[in-house]
């Protein structure tokens, strides 16, 4: 079994030194296995005990049913799992199986959670034709269903902005409309996470719960995110969404083909965002928004393929990106007919 201590870009974790430097540290070791002063130690132990006592009680009680003991045991392991990027392939496999099993225990139904790696030689790019968009929002609906977004808060990764002709100024555009479209004298621009090559959200995360994958997608480890929302503040495009409450997805609308870094079920207190449907594109499918759009306004493909549609658009159409001067290098371009 291969063990690796660095992440795929060759970065070493900060607390990997010392006598146990041979294998990646678990969450417990990363948190507890370092020197602290007495005051911090007392505080940490006390809060840890309070958190753990509840879990421990259900896990060890001989009176709980076998199912709830297993559930408690799995929740305990999940609570102390490490950062996804530091896991070996075997640990990742164990992590996703645990999520599948927990869902089965909690609901009696099965899901399929993958941890598919980025494909080699692929860098995803996206183009949006603002002459074609007519404000239909088929993309929004497709995205919500594909990515298991919370229905109660009307969580949407994609926003369609209705601009009045004469200027592109997002301050004056309406992004929560519901009337017949397109409205004469108006045009429509859609935004979502642009998967920047130089993402400010990744730089500011205090716990490295979000990072850019080798295929260009910026992802979040929802079980590592502490919900500080610094990334939400840092994003210049307002792409990040925070779960103020436990997300609710009706069981019959649940998308059961999930990815650990993509559309698997999130919890209260974590940040999420568009991932270019990582669960789909790593299997060769288009993102749900691209497939749903009836006007063909959305173009997707591999930027490293000189024959791809996205490259043709960049080379032949007049493209622009939003807030170009910030240097975020988004991989999402706009063009017109």
């Amino acid at each position, binding site marked *: 079994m291969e063990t690796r201590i660095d992440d795929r870009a060759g970065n070493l974790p900060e607390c990997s030194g010392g006598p146990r430097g041979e294998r990646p540290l678990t969450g417990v070791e990363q948190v507890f296995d370092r020197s602290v002063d007495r005051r911090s130690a007392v505080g940490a132990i006390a809060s840890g005990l309070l958190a753990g006592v509840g879990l421990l009680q259900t896990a060890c009680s001989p009176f709980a049913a076998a199912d709830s003991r297993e559930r408690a045991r799995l929740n305990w392991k999940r609570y102390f799992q490490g950062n996804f990027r530091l896991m070996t392939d075997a640990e990742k496999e164990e992590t996703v199986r645990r999520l599948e099993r927990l869902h089965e225990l909690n609901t009696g139904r099965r899901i399929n959670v993958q941890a598919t790696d980025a494909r080699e*030689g692929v860098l995803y790019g996206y183009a949006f034709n603002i002459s074609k968009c007519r404000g239909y929002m088929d993309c929004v609906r497709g995205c*919500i269903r594909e990515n298991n977004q919370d229905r109660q808060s009307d969580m949407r990764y994609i926003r369609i902005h209705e601009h009045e002709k004469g200027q592109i100024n997002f301050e004056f555009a309406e992004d929560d409309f519901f009337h017949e479209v397109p409205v004469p004298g108006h045009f429509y621009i859609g935004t979502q996470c642009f998967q920047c090559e130089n993402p400010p959200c990744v730089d500011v995360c205090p716990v490295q719960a979000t990072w850019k994958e080798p295929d260009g997608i910026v992802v979040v480890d929802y079980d590592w995110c502490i919900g500080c929302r610094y990334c939400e503040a840092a994003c210049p495009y307002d792409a990040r969404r925070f779960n103020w409450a436990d997300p609710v997805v009706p069981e019959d609308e649940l998308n059961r083909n999930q990815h650990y870094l993509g559309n698997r079920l999130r919890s209260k207190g974590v940040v999420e965002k568009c991932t270019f449907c990582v669960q789909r594109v790593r299997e060769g499918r288009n993102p749900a928004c691209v497939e749903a759009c009836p006007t063909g306004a959305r173009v997707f493909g591999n930027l490293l393929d000189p024959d791809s*549609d996205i490259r043709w658009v960049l080379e032949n159409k007049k493209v622009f990106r939003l807030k170009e001067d910030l240097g975020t290098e988004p991989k999402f371009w706009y063009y017109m007919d």
Partner: protein
Amino acid sequence: MRSGFHRVVAVRSLIRAVLWLGLLSPTGCAGEAGHAGEEDASLLARLRSGDVEHPNADLSSEPFLGPTRRVAVQEYSSRPTFYVFERAPSIEQYPCSECHTVMLAAMRPRRRAEQLHAHWDLTLVHASDRVMRCTTCHWQGNLDWLTTLTGDTVSFDHSYQLCAQCHSEQGADWAGGAHGKREGGWALPRVIQTCVACHDPHRPTWDTRWPAHAGRTQQ
């Protein structure tokens, strides 16, 4: 087990991708030698220097394409061969020659009261009647075929050739990838919808409609 050659190719692709990632950032300047001011290299130049040999990553659109048969489109020399779905099987009353056994001129009603026996639901609202009439596209010699402005016959499978006569910009955009709808996934084979999949050739204008998603405040 991967052979040594494949491993080398894979590693080379990976190195190139990693190098290209460094190139795409404006502050990264690792990579190709000999260029002064690497940070200022245009976006397209940076993209081209990162081209990989196997850009489909062992993925394919085949599993997502369904059983409909395809026709190759090879008229656009700037683009590698791509495909459209066959059209004739989805036309309800094809072949047209089953009814249209005589020339169209001979089928004209002699009396004003005698109207169309079929196609009564079709109205032509596409350019003015100084520009287009039925025979602009439908070949009178055999209604199983379409015709160009100069009289060349075209099969229904390649009907896009007709549209591109007047809509040449859209035709070029369509062949390139900036116009129209892709079928399947992002990997090869590239199958795209023809013009008539979205644009009714007899009445191409789209009506307004309601959005597919209502916000929580509007439900």
